[in-house]
């Protein structure tokens, strides 16, 4: 890799010579003929990235060169070429990779696309395609469209991704190598980033996410930057969309400006929506019909603003980047989720505004530095440092309970989280293996406020060290293994509330949360064996032991959580959770078809989750108490994917199937919010040739979600439903001609993409089993027409 890094640095050295000739090329998927955007090309000492159309060009002196063309998820091409005294054009079709191990792609800025620890990893490369087909109110909903990922929704504006049915404190949302904070109030709040800020996204399933620490014990969704531009210049992206189901307008854009060894990236986006329309005029709560006025869920409007600024640089010994991300989100909460649903509050009396109560207000900021340095050939050091601040507020009409006075603020709950993180990685590449070691530390403080109590203030530190050997070859097999050790100390402040008499005088106190001071040491490990049978088939098998620390919320919460409509209570006796997981994946790639089957099974000790207690809450307006309890749990499931190209590759058919089962070992009871079986059949008709830069594609998909009868105690079952989605996507690409290439203007191109899509085509009324609002029997969004425009200019 160091060799390629050196190439990447040398490519910026001017090699002006009158004898130089142009070498250009086109990199594409060998099966689909789709261009492979940003593929990495190393020719001799030069390294660069292709553009979005898979095109690249450079100049070189005549001679013989080693060439290496790589792209994430594809087998690399390694060969030699002879450059003579005339221009040379190379069309290269890459095969999808059969091995996800050790496929380390080095972009021009030295960015690693995969970590050194063994992973079963799926690239969500097509996030831009999903983004243009599915209108989504947040990043989690967008990620939930991918196989193996679902979105746990808290109403229409908030959600978080679930990987293979696990979510919350078990799933890391890792940006630039740092897990972002989004768990302060348990499982029901958004990620704190917008879909605009998702650049390159990968999904790491199961125990493979060991490298990201205990906060990613069941998987990770990782976000990393797009590669640097291959030379000085400016590239820009713009995107806008209107969605009819909630009158949502989105505007976003990105600007990349490279000047010599530096690059400045700016991303900004705004999203604003009105109330969500649903195909229902009423809903039933405890046998009572309650109105859904004008087919709209009242007070579900929202607005988000996101911004991102990044400075990157490369030099002879490495490179680095520093990134600031800011995110603001304010959205209304459906009034029915606070207290008992009230018919009068549900009537729409005026135009919704962002000032309406109840509402959520989220402001997050993060600064992440990532530096990369070559210590000596084959050895490198990576340093990551991050500061995060997340400020979440729940606002509601002031009210007192019992004899307590009515507060003079609308701040019902707030939690301010400030976190400092740092990681150091030392990596070595040897002949037939790679070695990776690292140390990570994190300090975090949470301060809570508001006239209600849910969780007390707390702080923690975590520190961990790991070591892994990767791609160690034993005969026909390839072995990877990693091990890590983590320690943490959690301190939770107690919380005591005053007790009032009839005259609103304080006559005593009531302890809602006790102080907690716990220190734990945990460990995790995984071993992955990979076997590549031939050019078309491979098999991977992984065993992992994972572990995570209980969160402050799981230890000390004690209050009514409006997001879940119930009284949630932590337990200071909770201990670290341990999981023993097996993963297997078999894949086949043919010339016009591919098939993959992945399965997993895992047994857990101290699996911490909210379970209904056999007692009622002692709080007003709260029903049954839900307590964070630990249980022995078994989970298994899998995903199957089949893709076939027919009619001379004009038509792609894809079939995805995913399923998860999860239950307690002691009594066989299912776990709550287990995703139902989902099957998606997709059809894409390419009306133009795949190689034509001007394209017109028609997409249709039918997603069947099965009934979920595998429910936890007191959890409602949900019925099956079928959703149809369609989209028509046209793209016009303009590229500078060969003459312009000679004028060194190559690469100055643009495309404009227009898409019309409709989601939930038949306006199906359905209840999402993974929505917290299914407790109220509230239907999901109805038919949605959207039109979007995307442009790329280089």
């Amino acid at each position: 890799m160091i060799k390629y890094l050196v190439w990447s640095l040398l490519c910026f050295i001017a090699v002006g010579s009158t004898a130089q000739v142009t070498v250009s090329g086109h990199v594409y998927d060998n099966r689909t003929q789709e261009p492979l955007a940003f593929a990495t090309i190393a020719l001799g000492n030069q390294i660069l990235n292709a553009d979005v159309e898979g095109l690249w060009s450079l100049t070189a002196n005549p001679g013989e060169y080693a060439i290496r063309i790589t792209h994430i998820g594809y087998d690399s091409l390694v060969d030699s070429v002879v450059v003579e005294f005339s221009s040379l054009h190379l069309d290269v079709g890459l095969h999808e990779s059969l091995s996800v191990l050790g496929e380390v792609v080095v972009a021009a800025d030295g960015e690693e696309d995969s970590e050194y620890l063994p992973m079963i990893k799926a690239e969500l490369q097509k996030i831009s395609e999903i983004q243009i087909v599915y209108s989504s109110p947040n990043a989690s909903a967008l990620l939930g469209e991918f196989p193996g990922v679902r979105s746990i929704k808290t109403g229409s504006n908030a959600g978080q991704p679930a990987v293979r049915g696990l979510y919350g404190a078990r799933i890391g949302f890792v940006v630039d190598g740092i897990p972002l904070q989004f768990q302060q109030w348990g499982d029901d709040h958004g990620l704190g980033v917008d879909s605009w800020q998702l650049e390159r996204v990968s999904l790491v399933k199961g125990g493979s996410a060991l490298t990201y620490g205990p906060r990613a014990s069941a998987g990770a969704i990782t976000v990393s930057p797009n590669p640097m531009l291959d030379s000085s210049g400016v590239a820009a992206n713009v995107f806008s969309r209107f969605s009819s189901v909630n009158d949502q307008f989105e505007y976003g854009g990105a600007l990349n400006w490279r000047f010599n060894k530096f690059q400045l990236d700016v991303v900004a986006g705004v999203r604003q929506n009105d109330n969500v329309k649903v195909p229902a005029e009423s809903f039933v709560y405890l046998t009572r019909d309650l109105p859904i006025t004008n087919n709209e869920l009242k007070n579900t409007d929202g607005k988000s603003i996101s911004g991102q600024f990044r400075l990157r640089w490369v030099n002879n010994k490495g490179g680095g980047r520093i990134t600031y991300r800011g995110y603001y989100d304010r959205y209304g909460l459906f009034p029915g989720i606070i207290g008992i649903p009230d018919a009068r509050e549900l009537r729409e009396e005026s135009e919704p505004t962002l000032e309406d109560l109840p509402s959520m207000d989220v402001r997050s900021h993060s600064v992440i530095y990532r530096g990369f340095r070559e210590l000596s050939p084959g050895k490198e050091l990576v340093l990551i440092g991050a500061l995060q601040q997340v400020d979440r507020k729940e606002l509601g009409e002031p009210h007192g309970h019992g004899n307590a006075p009515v507060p003079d603020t609308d701040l019902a709950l707030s939690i301010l989280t400030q976190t400092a993180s740092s990681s150091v990685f030392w990596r070595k590449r040897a002949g037939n293996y790679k070695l990776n070691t690292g140390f990570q530390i994190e300090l975090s403080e949470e301060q809570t406020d508001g006239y209600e109590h849910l969780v007390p203030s707390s702080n923690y530190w975590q520190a961990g060290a790991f070591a892994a050997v990767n791609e160690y070859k034993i005969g026909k097999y390839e072995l990877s293994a990693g091990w890590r050790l983590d320690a943490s100390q959690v301190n939770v402040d107690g919380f005591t509330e005053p007790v009032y008499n009839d005259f609103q005088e304080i006559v005593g106190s009531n302890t809602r949360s006790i102080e907690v001071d716990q220190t734990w040491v945990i460990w995790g490990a995984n071993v992955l064996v990979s076997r590549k049978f031939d050019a078309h088939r491979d098999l991977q098998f992984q065993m992992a032991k994972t572990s995570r620390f209980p969160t402050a919320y799981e230890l000390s919460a004690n209050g009514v959580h409006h997001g879940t409509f119930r009284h949630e209570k932590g337990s200071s006796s909770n201990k670290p959770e341990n999981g023993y997981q097996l993963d297997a994946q078999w894949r086949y790639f043919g010339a016009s078809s591919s098939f993959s089957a992945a399965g997993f099974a895992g047994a857990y000790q101290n699996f911490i989750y909210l379970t209904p207690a056999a007692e009622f809450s002692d709080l007003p307006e709260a029903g049954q108490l839900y307590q964070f309890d630990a249980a022995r749990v078994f989970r298994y499931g899998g995903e199957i994917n089949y893709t076939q190209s027919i009619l001379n590759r004009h038509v792609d058919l894809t079939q995805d199937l995913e399923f998860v089962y999860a239950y307690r070992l002691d009594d066989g009871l299912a776990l709550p919010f287990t995703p139902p079986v989902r099957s998606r059949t997709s059809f894409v008709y390419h009306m133009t040739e795949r190689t034509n830069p001007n394209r017109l594609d028609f997409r249709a998909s039918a997603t069947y979600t099965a009934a979920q009868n595998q429910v936890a105690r007191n959890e409602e079952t949900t019925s099956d439903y079928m959703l149809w989605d369609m989209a028509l996507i046209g793209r016009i690409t303009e590229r500078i001609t060969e003459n312009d290439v000679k004028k060194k203007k190559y690469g100055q191109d643009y495309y404009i993409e227009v898409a019309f899509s409709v989601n939930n085509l038949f306006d199906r009324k359905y209840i999402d089993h993974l929505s917290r609002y299914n407790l109220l029997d509230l239907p999901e969004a109805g038919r949605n027409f959207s039109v979007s425009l995307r442009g790329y200019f280089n």
Partner: protein
Amino acid sequence: MKINKILLALFIGVSLVACKEDTDEENPVISAVRINGATVTSNASIEAGTDMTLQINMTDNEELNQLKIDLHPNEDGHSHEEEGGEEADGEWEVLSVINLEGTSDSYSNTYSVPTNARGEWHLLVDVLDKEGNESSQVFVDIDVENDIIPLIEVTSVNGAEVDDEIDAAEGDVLVFQGTISDASGLADAHIEILDEDGNILVEEELEVGGAASFDMNGASITVPAFATDHLELHIHAEDNDGHEDEWSVELHND
């Protein structure tokens, strides 16, 4: 091939251990809720100043554990009907958790309905068994009729229906429409404006003259200076038996 065999054995093993054991997931049942001897399902009517006897019968297949009774006024807008019921007036709340035993149990208690209660109350009954299985909740709207205290009905102020508050400024004249009534006759009624500390700033007597019903048509009061953003507007009435009632709204100064 060995790996294939291992995988096959693994998934067979998974399938075997996936069999669910017997466990109690059956919900307890609230078999009957009676108010004053009559079975109620969603609505009931009682009179202020009387006793209300509540009887609840419950069953479970294995072991009952807790009963929760939550009776609260509809004063904060909670409503269980599509159009919402009459807002409650008066203080009367019951919040009890009662421990239960056996597969069948009953609960009975008598509550005194306050003489000043009027409007809609909500009764929520819920039961848990020893495993945490929860019954279907029973929700009853209780309409409390009151012939004891005066009834103050304000239909409009300055021609507009009154919501939570009235926008007003110093010197504004507030003109009331509505009636005050009481079967035993009205002894006294007046309109008053108070500051946030409860001090009366201005007061207008209404000439009720012992009548059973008084039409407020034309009654008015002038808004005094605002020391803060808000003032309280009260209409107070007392009947010939000494029973009182009060209607209130907030005055907001922009």
